[in-house]
């Protein structure tokens, strides 16, 4: 059942320059991979809602982690604890669990946001998790201590070597994907997803990626957010058929 919710903001924290973590009052029970569609203004300016992934969820309490990249996310960041947030959700599908006891999770930049809840869910399900966290530099490894605390096998890669290995995160993950009979999960920039999908395909691992697109309605009605997929259907909607897709199903741009 889709719902329009008005939930109180419990906490709005700046966790790094340009990055906010927002905690909401109880009201939405979501699965890892799902998102909420947030109305950032009471007027029609900006016109559309903004989709933000579920960063974490415990007993109906949602946490969002987002980067301020434009007017919408800046308006969201300006909201204070005690104010209410108008949101639709939970929307979209979720990361599926498989019968594999091992999981490899690859994050690129703010793509890490939905993977925190995934890591927690995988651990709860008793999986052995390896997590690879990549970003441009140390400052953009947002909440790295919290991610590190969550998983035993934690690795970092940065473009400039300011933290972890100076490499693309996919280079770090490649030997593990090759050597471990694990399910692979990823969220991040398109080229990263494409490479993770290639590696997973190469070694026969099942792989799930979370995709982004410009969304309008968020509920499957407008058909504005499609991605090209293999097969007869040709296009599928990020908002309801995704945001999580089997990597082999989609074309990466």
């Amino acid at each position: 059942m889709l719902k329009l919710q008005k939930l109180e903001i419990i906490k709005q924290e700046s966790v790094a320059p340009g990055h906010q973590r927002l905690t909401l009052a109880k009201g939405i029970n979501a699965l890892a991979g799902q998102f909420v569609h947030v109305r950032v203004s009471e007027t029609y300016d900006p016109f559309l809602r903004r989709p933000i992934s579920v960063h974490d969820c415990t007993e109906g309490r949602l946490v969002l982690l987002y980067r301020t990249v434009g007017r919408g996310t800046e308006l969201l960041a300006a909201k204070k604890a005690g104010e209410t947030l108008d949101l639709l959700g939970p929307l979209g599908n979720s990361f599926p669990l498989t019968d594999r006891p091992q999981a490899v999770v690859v994050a690129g930049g703010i793509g890490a946001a939905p993977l925190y809840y995934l890591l927690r869910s995988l651990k709860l399900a008793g999986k052995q998790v390896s997590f690879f966290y990549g970003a441009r530099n140390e400052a953009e490894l947002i909440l790295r201590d919290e991610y590190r605390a969550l998983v035993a096998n934690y690795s970092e890669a940065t473009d400039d070597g300011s933290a972890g290995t100076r490499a693309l995160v996919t280079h770090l993950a490649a030997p593990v994907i090759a050597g471990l009979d694990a399910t692979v999960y990823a969220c991040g920039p398109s080229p990263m997803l494409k490479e993770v999908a290639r590696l997973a395909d190469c070694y026969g691992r099942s792989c799930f990626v979370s995709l982004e697109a410009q969304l309008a309605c968020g509920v499957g009605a407008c058909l504005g957010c499609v991605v090209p997929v293999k097969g007869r259907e040709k296009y599928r909607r990020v908002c309801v058929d995704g945001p999580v897709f089997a990597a082999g199903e989609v074309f990466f741009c």
Partner: protein
Amino acid sequence: MTVKIAGVSLANPVMSASGCFGYGEEYASFFDLRRLGAVVVKGTTAEPCAGNPPPRMAETTGGMLNAIGLQNPGAVAAREKIIALQHYSVPVIVNVSGHSAAQYRAVIELLDDLAAVAAYEINISCPNVKAGGMAFGTDPAVVVGLVRELRGATKKPLIIKLSPNVTDVTVIARAAVEGGADALSLINTLLGMAIDMERRRPVLANLTGGLSGPAIKPVALRMVWQVSSAVDVPVIGMGGISGARDAVEFLMAGASAVAIGAANFTNPLVCPETVEGISAYLAENGFASVKEIVGLAKKEWLKMGDESGCGKK
């Protein structure tokens, strides 16, 4: 609150606009669809249509551009979705699209036996398909011919949806009525485009798209005024309506009913809220029916010149 459009009785004058409401199922979980005057479903073609490649949409100041390209499951699959809508006992208006007169006709022939279909809205104004669509809606001779042909294919009411992308919308409006239109709906989206400065290229894969949202409301109001003054059939007004105030303005401009499109994306409850808002407006201002405010601004406009030296002249 009841209105009658082309022989179809509506519980209130508020409809969902085609393309912004799917086949109703997505919004049925937000509110009871019975609260709508009618549901206008997605543009339906005879054959399934995959639509345009992404990116298909771009947000703009006060609205959005879309270039969906008529993605829909085709009339045969749409049948099931329309039958499912029957459960809500709300009039269903099917938006019919195609690339040729024969294709429009085929959609009607595939759906005409369904009691759930109250009327057809003939989309001669989609800006996002290569052939047909808007091309049909910009040539009066073609419009007369198409409407006449479809008139022969069904006894159900035909609502012709007009394009704003013409020099004089009343020419096309008169052509549609001449062909046998029972009502007109307007406006479809305005042709526009967006450029991404950082990436130095157009945003939409289709290059151009249809502009909708509050930004287009003044254009839509003007055209509703012009068309409702030019023809005798009822006009369904749409284009940037995002609440009761906008809806009342369209009714006053001469629309007999209104449709709400892109605002559903921002506020999924905008349709029922608009119904309530119109009802409250009528009650607060002593109007007994919606009909009393249809075209009201025109009557006032005529008076404006007479009474004083200010105003119209």
